[in-house]
């Protein structure tokens, strides 16, 4: 009985750390995507990557504009405020776009794969995402 309790406790303590050691490659291997699934997921990725790039370009342009305007902040205060608002909107759009991407990818996965995917994303978010500045996704 003691041995069983000890074993269970060991499992409780060791399992999360083992899981936490999973790298992306292990995660991808563990998903065991079928060929049609892989094609579908890659299509979704390519579609969204273009959208994200365009959003990033737009964001960069706005940042550049903001920098220019910030040289004379008093004269351009109204435009600065407007651009800051637009940047916020771009961030939100990018975030929403990513959530949409996740939901589309999830739909192509079966129950087990979906659980693994969500778990891995949560793990990443928990361990790393919290350190990035909110709204800028790593900037």
């Amino acid at each position, binding site marked *: 009985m003691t041995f069983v309790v000890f074993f269970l406790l060991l499992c409780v303590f060791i399992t999360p750390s083992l899981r936490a050691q999973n790298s992306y490659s292990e*995660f991808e291997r563990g998903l065991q995507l079928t060929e049609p699934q892989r094609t579908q997921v*890659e299509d979704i990725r390519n579609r969204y990557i273009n959208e994200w790039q365009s959003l*990033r370009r737009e964001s960069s342009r706005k940042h550049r504009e903001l920098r220019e305007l910030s040289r004379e902040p008093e004269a351009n205060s109204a435009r600065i405020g407007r651009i800051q608002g637009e940047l916020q909107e771009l961030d939100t759009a990018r975030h929403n776009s990513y959530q949409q991407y996740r939901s589309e990818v999830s739909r192509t996965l079966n129950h087990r794969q979906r659980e693994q995917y969500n778990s891995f994303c949560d793990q990443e978010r928990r361990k*790393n995402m919290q350190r990035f500045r909110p709204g800028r996704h*790593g900037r």
Partner: protein
Amino acid sequence: MGDKRAVALPLFFALFLVLITLTGFFQIRIIRNNIERQLMGEAEIIFTHVQREMDINLEYLSFLDRSPVIITPYFFNIMAFDESIIDDLDSAVGRLLKNPAEKGLEALSLANVVEYDLGGKIIARKGNSDIPAGLVRRIVSGEETTVIRMPVAGDRSLVLGRRLGERILFVRIDAPELETLRRKVILKDIVDREEKRFNIDAIKIYDGKGDLFVGGSDAGKNTFLLERDLSSKVLSGFRMQIFISRDLARDTIQRSAIGFILILAVLFVSGAGSIYAFFVMERKYAKRVKEMEREMEIKERLVSLGKLASGMAHEIRNPLNAISLSVQRLKREFVPSDEKKEDYLTFLDIIRKELTRVNGIVEEFLQSTRAQAPFSREDLRDLLEEVIIIVGEKASSKGIFIENVTGTGIHVECQRDRLKQAFYNIIINAIESMKDGGKIAIAVKQKEPLVEISVRDSGSGISEEELARIFEYYYTTKDKGMGLGLPISYMIVKDHGGDIKVMSAAGQGTTFVIVLPLRHDGAMTA
């Protein structure tokens, strides 16, 4: 014994201080070593953590190049780092366009930079890479002032072009250079974040050539440095320096040192104070012992002299009685013829007077030595009043006023006649010391279980030298004095378990303080 202690105590104390100082010194050294170890441990933890962060991020970056099937949140964030690169490039290109005369294209640390005129003709270049003609046309035509082409599957280079006034500048960042920039951005982000998170002075990363790769913030002067190679596959040959401020360590050591010095100072002051107090006490004790020894000596002398005098008095008394009786008979039965009768009677009177005087002396001796007389409870005021009545006439004749402020109801257990004798001697002594009249004040203070009777005169006072001898038998400064009164008073008071103190200064009067126990069984031990 005292001399030995006078040397041993300070020596012991000095040894003790030296030991404490040594202990404190080693203690601070231990603290310093512990802090060094702690700093090293902390630096190692930070080093490992930062390295792990770099590995994870760079691993994701390498995956990104291989197009991961699923974009996880981490990839999504890393992709956004290109924005930072573009922002930095744009700022650098903007600066160069505004200040063309400064350094030319060399001002940019990038490999491929091309400058065009407004006609689209190349006027300066750095590096060999070409810029896509379509992008140049978009700028030259004035359609756009800035163009950006992100890496695509066929061409993994990043191109940025910008027009400012008459100048057009393009930069092309090839895949390896872009990879390096991405790494820099990622590592800079990690370094900035970890510096803030761990509150450390600086983290610096050097590439394989030893050039600073990431980390611009200057390390403070007082820092602990840990420098090691990064055991990373991606960052081969890279080294990382971690600077941790020693301020906290310095503060800890300073606090310990100040605390130790304070303890040392307190120990020194208290130790020196204790030694000083010890010597003062010892001196006081020695003085007291000396006084007691002197008192004992006086008392012993008084007792032995008293015994001798008592024996002699008894022996003298009998012949005195015989002489007295013979004188009486001579006066009564053997009066000579008329012509010598007057002289005869005069001589007999002289003999009688001298006999009376000798008898008085003998009586006084006997009185002083009657230590076995019974004790009775007496009112002190009555006792003193009786003495004042006896000496009153003598005092009045010398113009001396005796003031007795003794309160009623103070009772003392004493040998009545002997105590009266003691007071009598002291007051008579006071009267005789006052040649030009004055005042004698008698006061009583009850201080349970004692009573203090003070007799203060306004006479000529006693010098210090005389004070030391006034209780000695036969010591007198008066012409007609016998030197018996005060020693006898002293002995009587001592027999009552009390004490006599004399305070006087020449020309300022004298105060005798007689301290007596109120009850016979409560005799003073001193």
